[in-house]
């Protein structure tokens, strides 16, 4: 039985894993068919035939995580760090019988590297599935308020 608190706790735990750079622990939160999506349009519907900033499966997320630790990953010398400031997640669906769990979380995200510090605001939408009695991320969708602005490097995960 998954209750609303379990969904909320999952989202807080995910942010903690990212903020403490426990990348493998973060990847373990995903369903094997899970996706991480950063749209490039307002209320975008299609991640495949409309442009996105990111639309990645677990293989590509593993590439990113492995790259962060690479000896010749010069854009991580020095390393980036991040901070998630989350509003209390809004539970959109929490139905164990149907296996449907969805939440939407407003956030401010900070990414820093060396003397640079950048702030981003947006909404994270989580779509979960159950594997056994554990929640797994089927889709994490990250909508920035200014998705259409030209950013510099965003190297970590919102």
């Amino acid at each position, binding site marked *: 039985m998954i209750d609303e608190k379990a969904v909320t706790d999952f989202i807080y735990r995910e942010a903690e894993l990212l903020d403490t750079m426990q990348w493998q622990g973060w990847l373990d939160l995903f369903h094997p068919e899970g996706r991480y999506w*950063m749209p*490039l*349009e307002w209320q975008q519907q299609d991640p*495949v*035939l*409309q*442009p*996105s*900033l*990111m*639309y990645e*499966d677990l*293989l*590509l997320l*593993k*590439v*990113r995580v*492995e*790259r962060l630790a*690479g000896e*010749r*990953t*010069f*854009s991580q010398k020095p390393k980036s760090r991040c901070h998630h400031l989350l509003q209390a997640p809004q539970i959109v669906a929490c139905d164990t019988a149907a296996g449907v769990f969805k939440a939407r979380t407003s956030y401010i995200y900070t990414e820093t590297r060396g003397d640079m510090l950048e702030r981003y605001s947006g909404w994270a939408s989580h779509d979960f599935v159950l594997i056994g009695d554990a929640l797994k991320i089927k889709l994490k969708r990250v909508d920035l308020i200014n998705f*259409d*602005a*030209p*950013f*510099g*490097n*965003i*190297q970590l995960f919102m």
Partner: protein
Amino acid sequence: MSRYSGNARSIAALVREAEVHRDVYIDPEIFDIEMEHLFPNSWVYVGHASQLAKPGDFVTATIGRQPVLASRHSDGSIHVFYNRCPHKGVKIATEPCGNTGKFFRCPYHAWSFKTDGSLLAIPLKKGYEGTGFGDTEANEGLSRIKNVVVYRDFIFARLNETGVSFEDYFGQSLSTIDNMVDRSPEGRLEIVAAPIRYMHTCNWKMLVENQTDTCHPMVAHESSAGTAVKVWKREQGDSTETPMAVQLYGPFMSPYEFYEQSGIRIWPNGHGHTGVANSIHSNYADVGGYLGQMIAAYGETRANEILGEVRHNTVYFPNIMVKGAVQILRNFIPIAVDKTLVESWVYRLVGAPDKLYERALMYNRFINAPTSIVGHDDLEMYERAQEGLKSNGNQWVNLRRLFERDEQPDVIAVINGTSERQMRNQFHAWAKFMTMDMDKQVEAAE
């Protein structure tokens, strides 16, 4: 102290046969001169006619630092204007694109203009009677850029009234645009979405040069493409089909020998492309149904000829790169001497399978987005160069790889694919278009 302004000789001296002085990347005065001379003397990409499908459609753009506006008039013609009201200078259009209806209307005092730029109406017009208004520039409406060419739907403009003609400027280099358009079974491309935008804290020319730099991918992108190849090898298990993502990343790790034999072709006026014999785009999986569509449209011989031409990056001097094989155009928009906005557009091949558009969009977000790991590798190098070039120890950038003593400027040639000759070609054009409208001033001063 002004070192370069109005001094064609000192500007030309920044470019040697195979070296360039660091001031071309870091000196704000040089940047100002580029904006005042190089960009107005060049043919610069403004937009694509598919963005102006209907009368009243418009796009905004910049040429150098000049804000411009392109519109589709009621008679179907395309016009490019300086994007300011002739009254008080207010920008007429601020959105990237839209439809203005039958006329443009300035939001400040409601002066209005037809979509060919001519003045339509001014409220309380009688206040201008007997004032001599009819003899002013304002009476002409929006200031029109006279030199505009729409080549196979690609809109280019040259700000200066006199200069090199479009045909002489681009010459045979237009073959890359031809090939990209021909890849549509209907011979037509369209833009259906916004570009990916990515801010770079470096000089715009570093980005342009990097497009034909074939000795950096296996080094700078070992962290991204190399890791992708490594992770796939480990994770693929008994999978026999290479995912589209790995097909796109993998070829970046091709060895030097691959790039050497694939070749570079240079054209006059600073244009050139990598991937003559073949390229990193040559071995993508076939998309079902596409070849059949192409053969039906063009016949077998011509279809194979079009699809057999798989060029890598084509630089159109000064500041765009076209990738015909994956239908991408990157626009390197100069903002400041150390700031460049990169807008990467994807064109849809009209009449072709969606899978090709899907692949082009994937390529664009893998390579050209602020969230792209390949982009992270490159921007790190540009930023380090922007900082490192401040060093006084050695003030020259070395472009001597495969330099030949008898190299001629402004010629067509096919050369070894690891040559830095296209960069030399660009800088020869840079010196030419920086100074071509200064010569008279210099002579007058002497």
